[in-house]
């Protein structure tokens, strides 16, 4: 599956504290001509790769600012240019939901979208429009958006961005988030700061681990009540069920799987790489999607696994959890991709300080020296 992080617009109606897309550069929006060109390219790629699927993740900025007609056009272009391949195109969308309406949902259904990814922040004035970040207005609209999704039987899940402001009351925030979505269905991600931390929201790895650690004992005890809370569930699945359920940054498999396409057609490895202009695969106006997906620069991400496994990550029992972490984080610190990241440290801290002592479950997913897992038959014997 090729995943296209598709940013047809960088415009956003919110000024979230942890996002610098709006403020860093003048937001652009993709022309309809370019949109059509992209669907032609998707068709070309899928014809060249008959076993392959494409997942097109509508991202932004806020993609709903494009308006309903833009999505109708996208649907038309898909019908027109991907006649034989459209069944291999899956759409997904990330939206702040503040602009959602029934028309959008009707179009989404036609695009095969039945769930929406979003994010939420209960702490006031971190998300919202305007310089003051009017979170009250934002949140009211957000809740209306949720009501509309639920009324129309759309699923939804969300990301909570953990910042320095979250550290005072982790459990309260967890309770709030699980009240917002009763079964869970959310992900607790650390804030990513590239460059100067002007708002003083960045976290140390220890702070993130302790934030998760403050919640984890409660979650573990009541995990049947909150089945879908990540990264906890992912950790459990990873260790106990041996599933590879980590996020994209930890799979070690993003090399040939991801691509970012920005509003001017610029291509990069992924959304972050594109936003922060870390790596460029040229422009889809000049190169085909197939060429971009096979760009030789990608090979370095594959090689990275070998380099880390035989170097910095050698013997690490947690390799399967993080694969050295996101190459971009390595780049931020070392100006190249071939190092492990300091997020490894955060994960390790969480596992050793909280996960393993609380659950009593050990990871045996190591490379050289497996730890015993109580779930393994050979361990029991």
């Amino acid at each position: 599956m090729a995943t296209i992080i598709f940013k047809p617009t960088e415009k956003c109606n919110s000024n979230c504290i942890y996002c610098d897309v709006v403020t860093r550069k003048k937001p652009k929006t993709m022309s309809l001509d370019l949109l059509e060109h992209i669907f032609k390219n998707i068709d070309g790629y899928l014809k060249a790769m008959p076993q392959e699927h494409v997942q097109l993740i509508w991202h932004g900025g806020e993609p709903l600012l494009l308006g309903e007609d833009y999505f109708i056009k996208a649907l038309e272009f898909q019908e027109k240019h991907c006649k034989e391949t459209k069944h291999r195109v899956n759409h997904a969308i990330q939206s702040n939901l503040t602009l959602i309406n029934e028309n959008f949902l009707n179009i989404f259904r036609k695009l095969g979208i039945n769930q929406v990814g979003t994010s939420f922040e209960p702490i006031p004035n971190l998300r919202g429009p305007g310089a003051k970040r009017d979170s009250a207005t934002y949140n009211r609209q957000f809740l209306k958006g949720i009501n509309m999704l639920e009324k129309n039987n759309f699923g939804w899940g969300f990301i909570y961005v953990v910042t320095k402001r979250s550290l005072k009351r982790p459990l309260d925030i967890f309770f709030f988030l699980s009240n917002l979505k009763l079964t869970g269905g959310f992900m607790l991600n650390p804030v990513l700061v590239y460059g100067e931390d002007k708002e003083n929201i960045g976290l140390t790895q220890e702070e993130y681990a302790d934030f998760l650690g403050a919640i984890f004992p409660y979650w573990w005890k009541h995990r049947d009540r909150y089945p879908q809370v990540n990264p906890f569930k992912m950790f459990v699945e990873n260790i106990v069920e041996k599933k590879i359920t980590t996020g994209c940054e930890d799979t070690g498999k993003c090399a040939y799987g991801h691509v970012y396409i920005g509003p001017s057609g610029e291509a990069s490895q992924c959304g972050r790489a594109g936003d922060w202009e870390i790596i460029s695969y040229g422009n889809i106006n000049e190169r085909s999607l197939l060429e971009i997906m096979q760009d030789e620069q990608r090979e370095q991400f594959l090689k990275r696994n070998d380099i880390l496994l035989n170097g910095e990550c050698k013997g690490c029992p947690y390799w399967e959890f993080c694969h050295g972490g996101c190459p971009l984080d390595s780049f931020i610190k070392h100006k190249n991709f071939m190092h492990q990241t300091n997020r490894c440290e955060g994960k390790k801290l969480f596992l050793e300080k909280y996960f393993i002592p609380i659950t009593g479950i050990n990871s045996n997913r190591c490379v050289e020296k497996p730890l015993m897992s109580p779930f393994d038959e050979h361990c029991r014997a």
Partner: protein
Amino acid sequence: MRDHILVCQFDEDLVRKFHNQRLVIILSDFNQVQQAHKLVNDCQNNLHCLVIDHAGSLASVPFHEKWRGIPLALFVSEIGAFKEVMGKLPLLRDLNIRIFLSTDNKENCTGLHILASLGIDCGVSFGEKEIDWEAMNDLMTYSIYGKVNHASIEPFQFIARNYNPARLTDLSSVYFDNPYTYIHIDKNENIALTANDLKEGKFILKGIENVHKIFEDEKYQEALNAWQKFLLKENGCAYCQAWRICIGKFSESADKNPGCRQFFTDLMEAADHFISVQQKNKRKEVWQP
């Protein structure tokens, strides 16, 4: 789309206007019990429950043999003379009745404990005064964890039976006051979403013939989502792990009397326990000849 159960004061003219309607009738007098029951049936309606709010004690209620089979919710101030109640116990056990005692009287938690242990279904009526959450917790613990057979105590049983971690559980249903199931109507056919709205004249519609239109009404949808207001606050009930089963019902007193948090947290644990016991005791279904 399901029909609502209508809640109204006993008014013969009003009841005669309903047809094929599930009704909760609020009575002002014990003498109306049989009369209201007969009228509802004669008009081919379905009696969900008769509600009587009696200012006196349980001991002073003139229970009648002819009340058998009539669904009754009786709100009384206290148990009263125990020996009098014991004398009425055989009849009480035979009636389709739930006795509610108010938290305004501190002895009533014990009263409910006694009634339930004697096999009389009963319930807590949350009053105006400060609630003793510890006593409430003891009562709930008895209600859910008690090893010996006893009658149900609401709203604990309601929460335990209906609790589903994937959705909110609204104990207002026990008091016929959840707009998802019940709506309130007065003799002038003004329709309101809660008993309080009706009392305060906050009507949503008028006319029995319009009851079915309630689903289209924006205010109705807003009322169903009224719980979301807690999610817009910086602090308070939405930050409590047990909010999903109390939905902020005690938010106004929670600052002064925060025991509700522990109580509902324990109740949620009890509901988890109740579900696990039910699942454990689920009998295997074998084919039937």
